[in-house]
């Protein structure tokens, strides 16, 4: 047996196998990163198509194209797919591609586990999507699946939903363990913690959050399963439980989860702003400490999602102040990004356009979050379109823009080809206009009192809903352009240099473009 293993060891540098088997059996962090990124893109398009159904229905008041039951299923699946299928896997894909190269490691620390983490996802989402064709339809209780809507009143497919969430969670936990072990154990000599690129730092913290909260989500769905099928009463007051308990457990997971979806974006944007400002990042260590503070605070703010549920006053006050405190480290980060650009020799390539608009639009989303954190104000805003506008501002021009920025920034390193700059800028401007036209009016209709999650609305909200739908279709269509640009770059294009960008620094820019199949088989020297 040992001789067989040895022969494996010898053909270490032969490069990838051919065909489908390469992707099914791969242990290579670059292959797995690519798989994650394409999977996430596919989910982004599917979840996006569902968003188009939602917006088309809301184009005019009254029932237009779908049944209310189906609208609820679209709403639920859109949220679940975008959170667990699009944003999170995209960041894991970026971590796979970049973290080993950035710390000078030969691969991820646990390569086979890495493959398992990815391949669980298509199966989990296959099951989730198949629930659309089951008796009673797909889950229809919103992505937050509050009990008793998700227990007593759920369709039978909720059982499949519960188990697919378990599998997604297992995938996330294993992926995060891999990232943490890689960062803690695989850094090249000289790569001290406080010399690590910020994207690596952001993922170290994100992975910690994931390992801390995904098991709590598993606990929540397990209690649901028991309540539905085995007679327990966790979320049933008649037996001494409490439906509000579900919300507490869910948001104990859910709030760190929203930082899981933004911290890697912070890392990406820091790199891009630094490169295209041709300056060193302002306040590196304060960036690290800000991310750590945000991560720690994220565990003590969960109940700000539940101000109107009927909590004791002391809890409302505590969660209000704790939430507001998060604005401080976040403000530090925004200040540092702006200070990095100050007096820099800035050029506006596509990644930089996405990064700058990230800073501006994410900050808008942050400020509306600050408004929502005020308890008496939240009583007015709760469950209105103002909330929808708030979290879409942090997720779409926040997380999603940062992922797009990352793709444009690193795709020359992945493929060896430059993308088409003119088309990239066109994609940016269409997305930028689309996203603002979609979501900015939702602030107004929300403040005017339009509730979220309904397929119909009062006549006074008609005009801005029409505008919002127009923006949504513009944004959706411009992502087809994105797909085209990425495919074109993969096929060919102007050859990229190893450094790619004039101001780029870091180990990943010291290897050729495209990056060889195996990088840093022996660790590089880090100064």
């Amino acid at each position: 047996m040992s001789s067989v293993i040895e022969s494996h060891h010898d053909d270490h540098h032969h490069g990838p196998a051919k065909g489908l088997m390469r992707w099914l059996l791969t242990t290579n962090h670059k292959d797995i990163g690519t798989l994650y990124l394409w999977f996430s893109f596919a989910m982004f398009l599917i979840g996006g198509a569902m968003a188009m159904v939602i917006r088309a229905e809301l184009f005019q008041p009254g029932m237009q194209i779908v049944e209310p039951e189906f609208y609820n299923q679209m709403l639920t699946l859109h949220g679940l797919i975008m959170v667990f299928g699009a944003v999170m896997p995209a960041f894991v894909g970026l971590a796979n591609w970049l973290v080993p190269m950035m710390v000078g490691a030969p691969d991820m620390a646990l390569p086979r586990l890495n493959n398992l983490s990815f391949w669980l996802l298509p199966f989990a989402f296959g099951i989730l999507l198949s629930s659309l064709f089951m008796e009673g339809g797909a889950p229809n209780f919103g992505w937050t699946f509050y009990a008793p809507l998700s227990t007593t009143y759920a369709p039978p497919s909720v059982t499949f939903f519960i188990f697919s969430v378990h599998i997604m969670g297992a995938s996330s936990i294993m992926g995060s363990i891999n990232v943490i072990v890689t960062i803690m154990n695989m850094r090249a000599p000289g790569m001290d913690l406080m010399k690590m690129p910020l994207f690596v730092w952001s993922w170290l913290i994100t992975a910690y959050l994931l390992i801390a909260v995904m098991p709590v989500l598993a606990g929540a769905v397990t209690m649901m399963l028991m309540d539905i099928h085995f007679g327990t009463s966790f979320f049933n007051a008649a037996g001494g439980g409490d439906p509000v308990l579900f919300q507490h457990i869910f948001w104990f997971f859910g709030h760190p989860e929203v930082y899981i979806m933004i911290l890697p974006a912070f890392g990406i944007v820091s790199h891009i702003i630094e490169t295209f400002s041709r300056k060193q990042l302002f306040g590196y260590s304060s960036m690290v400490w800000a991310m750590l503070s945000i991560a720690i605070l994220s565990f003590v703010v969960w109940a700000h999602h539940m101000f109107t549920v009927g909590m004791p006053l002391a809890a409302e006050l505590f969660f209000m102040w704790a939430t507001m405190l998060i604005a401080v480290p976040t403000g530090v980060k925004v200040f540092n990004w702006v200070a990095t650009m100050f007096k820099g020799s800035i050029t506006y390539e596509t990644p930089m356009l996405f990064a700058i608009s990230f800073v501006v639009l994410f900050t808008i989303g942050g400020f509306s979050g600050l408004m929502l954190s005020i308890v008496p104000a939240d009583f007015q805003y709760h469950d209105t379109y103002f909330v929808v506008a708030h979290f879409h501002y942090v997720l779409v021009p926040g997380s999603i823009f940062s992922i797009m920025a990352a793709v444009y920034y690193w795709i020359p390193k992945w493929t060896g080809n430059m993308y088409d700059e003119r088309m990239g800028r066109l994609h940016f401007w269409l997305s930028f206009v689309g996203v603002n036209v979609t979501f900015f009016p939702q602030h107004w209709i929300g403040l005017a009192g339009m509730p979220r999650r309904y397929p119909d609305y009062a006549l006074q909200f008609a005009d801005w809903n029409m505008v919002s739908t127009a923006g949504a279709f513009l944004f959706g269509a411009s992502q087809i352009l994105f797909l085209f640009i990425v495919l074109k770059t993969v096929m060919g294009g102007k050859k990229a240099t190893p450094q790619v960008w004039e101001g780029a620094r870091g180990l990943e820019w010291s290897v050729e473009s495209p990056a060889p199949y195996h990088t840093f088989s022996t660790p590089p020297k880090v100064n």
Partner: protein
Amino acid sequence: MEYQKYYVPESSKFPIFAAFSLFILIIGASSTINSLDNPESNASLILYTGLACFLATLFFWFRQVVKENNAGLESAQLSQSFVYGMAWFIFSEVMFFAAFFGALFYVRSFAVPWLGGEGEKGLANMLWQDFEATWPLINTPDGGKAFVIAAKSMSFPGWENISHWLPLYNTIVLLSSSVTVHFAHLGLKKGNKKTFNIWLGITVLLALIFVGLQAAEYYEAYEHFGLTLNSGIYGSTFFMLTGFHGFHVMLGGLMLAVMFIRSVFYGHFNEHKHFGFEAASWYWHFVDVVWVMLFLFVYIL
């Protein structure tokens, strides 16, 4: 010192098999649960097929890792990766239990007192005005309309009955097993394989005794006390916490048994290389700590 290459297998069939068998497993599990009241359903066959495939994949996967280790492919750095990996896996398990302990603390400190009319949200008492908050909660707020009211809880029965109180014996068994596994570890570190095997064997035995006692306790709860999953929030938290703990004892016991077989029949482990055992023993200590928490918050307080 020259850099020892970090072993990265060129490709592996195990993960895709594991992912696919989990896919079968959860389709089977969901279908089985959804057709519980249909005696003609064959869905459990899918469940067992998936489970068997998954366990087989794990067996061959771990066997491969052991073989690679014995072939000397593991650098010190790779071994360190396993150390970190196991530690973080145990942390994720801690957080899983935290969800259930959190639920227990929440219902005990807030939900039940409020339903009984105490505290700031005591208004909840208007739902069932006869309900009085007690813990262990035996009478459900709805007076047992939708639930089966138990005769008795599993809590501390008072000093006079302590000699019949099963959880006390469970505690003694499990705490001793943590000590015996530590003795095994000490023996191994001195290179004394015989001491190691004996103490490890005793630990596995204690694990079996614990599982047996736990089964007896469940039998007693269901048959004699009428305490079931359907007995309201006390039964829910009791069975979910002790049940998941018991499941983890079985898992940890299985790990230790595998290490025992590897040591006795295959001569694995020596004083320098024994992380497989060490990981299993960490897991065992973790399971033990969870039990101490359970004993305190589920049984005594």
